[in-house]
């Protein structure tokens, strides 16, 4: 029910964006999220973009994980 999928924004037209998930296009309402631009990734939930995905935070999480992976081979 709280499922939300990362979707890439391809265009923004007022309160509505076109987004793609695995090359399939969807419409995303932007009524709950401001300052969305083409190229951003957003979480799509029941037709609404509910949050932007932060690429820097994603990279930092991945860095921490790779660190654990590296150490596990010690």
């Amino acid at each position, binding site marked *: 029910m*709280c499922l939300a999928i990362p979707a890439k924004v391809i265009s923004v037209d007022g309160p509505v964006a076109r987004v793609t998930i695995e090359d399939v296009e969807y419409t995303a309402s932007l009524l709950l999220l401001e300052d969305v631009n083409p190229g951003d*990734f957003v979480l799509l*939930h029941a037709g609404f973009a509910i949050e932007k*995905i932060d690429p820097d935070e994603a990279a930092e999480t*991945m860095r921490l994980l790779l660190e654990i992976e590296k150490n596990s081979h010690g």
Partner: protein
Amino acid sequence: MRKTVTVDARMKYIDEYRNKDLILAASDELKRISKKEITLMEVCGGHTMAIHRFGITALLPPNIRLLSGPGCPVCVSSQHFIDTAIAYSKIPGVIIATYGDLIRVPGSETSLEKEKAKGRDIRIIYSVLDAVGMARNNKEKPVIFLGIGFETTAPATAAAIIKAKSEELDNFFVLSAHKVMPPVMKALVEEGVKINGFIAPGHVSAITGTTIYDDLPSVYNLGVVVSGFEPVDMMQAILMLTRQVESGNPKVEIQYKRAVQRNGNKTAQRLMNEVFEPKDDTWRGLGVIPVSGLKIKENFSIFDAGKYFKVEVPESSEPKGCICGMILRGMKTPVDCSMFANQCTPAEPVGACMVSGEGTCATYYRYRS
């Protein structure tokens, strides 16, 4: 010679969080650091699904136990809510608009699905804005949207009500069973469920932020880690909680930092607070929990189906022998139920935990070994 892990993604922000080497590394690290007997509750039905789908349990040391919580909106919606929705569907001319997973939930006597088969106008929608569109295109008919879901979903309903108001639609209504997470999490602990920490819901927290959990470490001595929904996310969240428990230092942390900020989504919070206010609400199996539900504020009462449509709903009863309520409270698991996988299956569900795809019983059934 150590092999290099390359993390590429065809589906960005999904595939890299399903990387097998990272999952196994987190598993090794957990086994290395984990000493104490630990029970963690995953609150969200989406997490329950991910745990079983990706076989997370098999990657944990035997002293770490996961327990499913009450985070399946379909499962916790009260029998009275379902019966009211069914009664609305019988009003001539009414269109019921609902998310798909609700229609098969058995009411006291029938279900929305059975009523739809009898010709009631019950329509499955993907977005609440579809229901607003239906109201716009069917001005002579009342459209009643069945509002279920937690903080992830409630802002969308709020946005739809505000949109209906701006369009001056007088035939769009919402029956709200929207609920909020923190009160039920605390209620479970106060009732005596024995856990060391919560794997907190990622998309609820994307909206609310994490300040809503601040008293769980300070008052209840419980760790909280907000997790994403991919297997790497979940393994990392379990690792973070295990570190907290092992060091005796419970706190609120965010694993799912790419989507969750400490203060959450302010726009969504503002809309939710504009339209809804807290109310005491009934949860299946848990009874009434203070300030755990959302009702439509007086300013928007013309959209409140409960105020506009009066229906007689008989005293509701839970399905006989169903232990869904105990499962939602973390007191039992589906295999404790004598009906599980024989009288009660996803094709012929007896109780709500078997109906929703993210219900604990349905998840256990699908991935049972």
